[in-house]
């Protein structure tokens, strides 16, 4: 017996590829540009968004029958903002070091359009369990792209991965740098994140032509 029904598995796995929030739904581009200069920041952001999206989806889903439709966007905003602030405060009290790393992301999480997008498109019309799976799946799809972009930007821009000098030392001229390799400082700037995301979209659509929209 499978742990998840076929439909539930789809909720978890579709956003990783054929219904990816960034490359297909084109949500969350702004944060994908802002914080992917380093792999570590990408991973932290991916984990934070996964937590907020999964819990927020469940909360919105539980409230879906009592939320007045006229003010539903405000309700969604309040839920996600309250959630993020509570997590931030608890971390500040019990895991101060971690909270310092995360504090930069708090604003980015609240304004992340993936979160509002999934509340609006899924949690308002589905039960809590499936909303939870949808949250995990979409955050994983988002995080996957973030990590891919972060990987290439940090590797080509700084020559490091998670802070480790994988290509050698650019100042002491060891490793690749000994034969004249230079870091591409342009990779550290936001426009390159857009180009990397563009390349991912291109690769994905050329492998699966069903994803190409018709005019």
């Amino acid at each position, binding site marked *: 017996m499978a742990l998840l029904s076929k439909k539930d598995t789809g909720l978890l796995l579709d956003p990783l590829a054929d219904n990816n929030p960034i490359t297909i739904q084109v949500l969350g581009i702004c944060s994908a540009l802002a914080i992917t*200069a380093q792999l570590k920041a990408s991973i932290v952001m991916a984990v934070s968004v996964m937590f907020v999206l999964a819990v927020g989806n469940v909360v919105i889903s539980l409230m879906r029958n009592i939320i007045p439709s006229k003010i539903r966007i405000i309700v969604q905003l309040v839920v996600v903002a309250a959630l993020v602030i509570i997590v931030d405060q*608890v971390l500040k*009290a019990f895991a*101060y070091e971690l909270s310092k790393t995360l504090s*930069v992301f708090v604003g980015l999480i609240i304004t992340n359009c993936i979160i509002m997008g999934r509340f609006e498109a899924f949690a308002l019309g589905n039960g809590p369990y499936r909303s939870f799976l949808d949250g995990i799946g979409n955050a994983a799809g988002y995080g996957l792209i973030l990590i891919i972009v972060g990987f290439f930007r940090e590797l080509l821009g700084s020559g490091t991965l998670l802070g480790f000098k994988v290509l050698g030392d650019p100042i002491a001229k060891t490793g690749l740098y000994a034969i004249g390799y230079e870091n591409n400082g342009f990779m*550290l700037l936001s426009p390159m994140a857009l180009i990397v995301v563009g390349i991912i979209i291109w690769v994905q659509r050329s492998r699966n032509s069903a994803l190409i929209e018709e005019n």
Partner: protein
Amino acid sequence: MANTDKNSYTLIFAVVMVLVVGALLAFTASSLKPRITENERFEKQQNILYAMGVNENVEGAVNFIPTNKVEAEFSKYIKEQLVIQNGEVKKDSSAYLINLKGELSKDISERKLPLFVGEKERKDYYIIPLYGKGLWDAIWGFVALDSEYVVQGVYFDHKGETPGLGANIKERYFMDDFTGEEIMNGTEYGGITVAKGNNDPLNERKNDGKVDAIAGATITGNGVTAMINSTVKLYIPYLKDIKL
């Protein structure tokens, strides 16, 4: 199920939601406040000690004195805490709790400037707090000088600089470059400039008052320059008298 489209329902829902969420946030914030204040206090002590080189750094990474030891270490290494106000220098054992941001916005006659005198291995350190603005939000830190106005160590922190770019001002490779730089240009106050151009990537020239900037973080770097120059300058007239 009640009609959720009615205006009265919408209004009641909004009011109840605001009350519930407001109460929840207020409760969380006030019940966690003592712990958060305590953590912030320890962090200040850790930062001050870090600037004068009292830390547990291992290769490449920033490691503070652990929070359970920091209070004892702080009273061991920091032999005097001073407050400069209106031209007078007084001792004040809680000077490290002074909020520099608030003081800098005050009138000069009311402004209290904290200064810490540390001693490590029979050498005196004068630790000056810094406050300024980066690209997105506040940046702050501490700089430790010796009696010859040579930088012995710095610590920088920020509220919301871009991860991977401006946020790297709190990384070792940036902060370590400041050590050994001279803050005086002859007899004049020169400050330290975070300079672009990569003309000295290994930072071998220590007397030029320049450190190598971070690529892609020009505005944050300029903020660091401005912060050091404007804040340290306020202390220079007093350092001569304070030095024993």
